């Protein structure tokens, strides 16, 4: 147990170091854009008719703390992010980023994680059973469904569903909320409304994610099934379900868990295009917008940081899960 806590603490430390590195990179990228926030603010004021002098710019830089050295500014940005969860202001939109993001990031992350959850809830048992089954019919149809999921671009699926629902029900099923709930406070009805919309992006993202996970699980299972320890277990008299779940399935689980962090990244990357088509105003789409249209580095930086932080956190969780199920990970990494 002490070993395990040591392992978890080491991993947590590594995760924090990773996050700090990421924040440094993100912050440097934000800084690399020519011109600083002070100049932008004043340039904006200028367009409103005020006269601007160099002294004004310097005063504004002082007010914003931009005259401090790079590392100090990074430190204060990181400090605000880590301890207050405050990403500062977007100097293009002149709004606080936390306000701007609102629930959007969490909603997007929620959609992605839910898609992944469903994907794995389906893919793990189905993949295991299909790897163990000799039914050509079962494997044929599964292969067909997952090739469809892998081959059909998500935007096409989204468009098809929209078209279909518009024609059939006269409702295009876009957005994450109905009009009346869009800016309302969270309430039971708003949750219900959200869920009635959210299943569609979850379904679209989840299909390809399931198809992908299914292929992974099946391949890993077939790989394990061919190993000598399975023959050895059979030679000891094991058979049927006991053999399947305790031997190949249990040992395939490690690599499956390992692929989760990577999958979250993949699903999040696919989210923007689905979001644009379904006109969901969520973080992925916001990221595209902030990068492409307005060059809003503070906003983009915040979103990239949040996404990386989610992936690092998920990786931390999967590392812990791996250590729980695989003694080799537990014992080797802990150096005992």
């Amino acid at each position, binding site marked *: 147990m002490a070993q395990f806590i040591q392992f978890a603490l080491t991993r947590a430390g590594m995760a924090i170091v990773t996050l700090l590195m990421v924040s440094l990179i993100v912050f440097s990228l934000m800084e690399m854009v020519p011109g600083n926030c002070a100049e932008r603010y004043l340039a904006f004021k200028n367009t409103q008719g005020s006269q601007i002098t160099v002294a004004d710019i310097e005063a504004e830089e002082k007010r914003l703390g931009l005259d401090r050295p790079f590392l100090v500014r990074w430190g204060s940005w990181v400090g605000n992010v880590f301890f207050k969860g405050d990403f500062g202001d977007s100097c293009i939109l002149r709004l606080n980023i936390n306000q701007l993001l609102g629930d959007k990031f969490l909603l997007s992350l929620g959609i992605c994680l839910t898609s992944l959850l469903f994907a794995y809830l389906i893919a793990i048992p189905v993949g295991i059973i299909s790897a163990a089954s*000799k039914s050509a019919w079962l494997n044929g149809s599964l292969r067909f469904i997952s090739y469809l999921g892998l081959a059909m671009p998500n935007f096409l699926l989204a468009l098809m569903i929209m078209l279909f629902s518009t024609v059939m029900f006269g409702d295009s099923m876009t957005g994450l909320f109905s009009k009346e709930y869009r800016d309302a406070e969270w309430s039971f009805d708003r949750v219900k409304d959200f869920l009635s919309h959210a299943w569609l992006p979850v379904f679209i993202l989840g299909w390809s994610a399931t198809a992908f996970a299914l292929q992974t699980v099946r391949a890993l299972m077939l790989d394990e099934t061919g*190993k*000598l*320890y399975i*023959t*050895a*277990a*059979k*030679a*000891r*008299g*094991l*058979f*049927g379900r006991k053999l399947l779940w*305790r*031997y190949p399935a*249990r*040992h395939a689980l*490690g690599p499956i868990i390992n692929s989760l962090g990577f999958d979250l990244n993949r699903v999040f990357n696919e989210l923007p295009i689905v979001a644009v088509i379904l006109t969901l105003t969520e973080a992925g789409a916001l990221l595209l917008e902030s990068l492409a249209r307005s060059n809003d580095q503070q906003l983009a930086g915040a979103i990239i940081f949040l996404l990386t932080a989610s992936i690092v956190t998920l990786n931390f969780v999967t590392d812990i899960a791996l250590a729980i*199920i*695989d*003694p*080799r990970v537990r*014992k080797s990494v802990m150096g005992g």
Partner: protein
Amino acid sequence: MIETLISVKDLTVRFKTDEGLITAVDGVTFDVKPGEILGLVGESGSGKSVTAKSLMLLNADNTVYDPKSSMKLNLHDQSIDILSLKKPQDQMIIRGGAISMIFQEPMASFAPAITIGDQMVEQLKLHSNMPDEKAKEISIEMLERVGIPEAGKRFNQYAFEFSGGMRQRAMIAMALSTKPKLLIADEPTTALDVTIQAQVIELMKELVDEFHMAIIFITHDLGVIAQTADRVAVMYLGNLVETGTVHQVIQQPAHPYTQGLINALPNLEDLDSPLTPVPGDIPSPLERPTGCVFNTRCSLSLGERCEAEVPHNFNVAPGHNVSCHLMEQRMAANE
């Protein structure tokens, strides 16, 4: 007392492959007596593992057993027709019950994420209805018996925490925990270094006496066979070309292939003497030679007869059998 424990007759094993049906074992016949160590030798690909796995019906799903094949397991209260065991429940007697198997790679034969102890207890409980504590007690006793120090602690460890020799000992402990009548050891010492190999072989010989169990010992190494086995069966391309006592086969090899194998052994007395391996390579099972399977590599081939006619298996001395046209001719000439 049972006369023969295992009686294999005309065992013929084929595999369905994309290239068609290939024959891996062709008409193999042998017996194993209780408490006897039978050495099975032959080059890589000669069908030793396939023969051994047949006894536990462990060959892959693409296996076809020829209907004339027969494998009998004689226990004191019953005689079991192995090929008629279709249901997994019925097969348990030949899988870890009366027959156990150990493999060349002890590391790969243990499930990596399950403790050695759990795997041992699992097997014991599968073959009896003893409670957990009893199974654990027996497992630890077995680990101690095969010479694993601190067996109680080792019980809770994983295969990757054992050294190579210890793993093979643990594998033997697990295989013997259910007190099988036959142990199949498929190159159990090939992956070990020589001193450890000697220890493991010594251990197996002790256990044969103690448990009054028979062993089918598979190896490439005639030297190991000479130290270990009571009788030897020499396999070539799916055929048993010669069987006899260790003394007969090693001192008076009758088949040109066995003679070749023995000549190929390095001579430690005379290090300058040239190595004389059996010429050529073992043919692919897809291109099995007609007639005698060894004729393509035999320096003593009689030509046409060996290429066309499958040799009979005949007796050169009591308990010493060989399949070779040349030997048959010589025998006939002597009479």
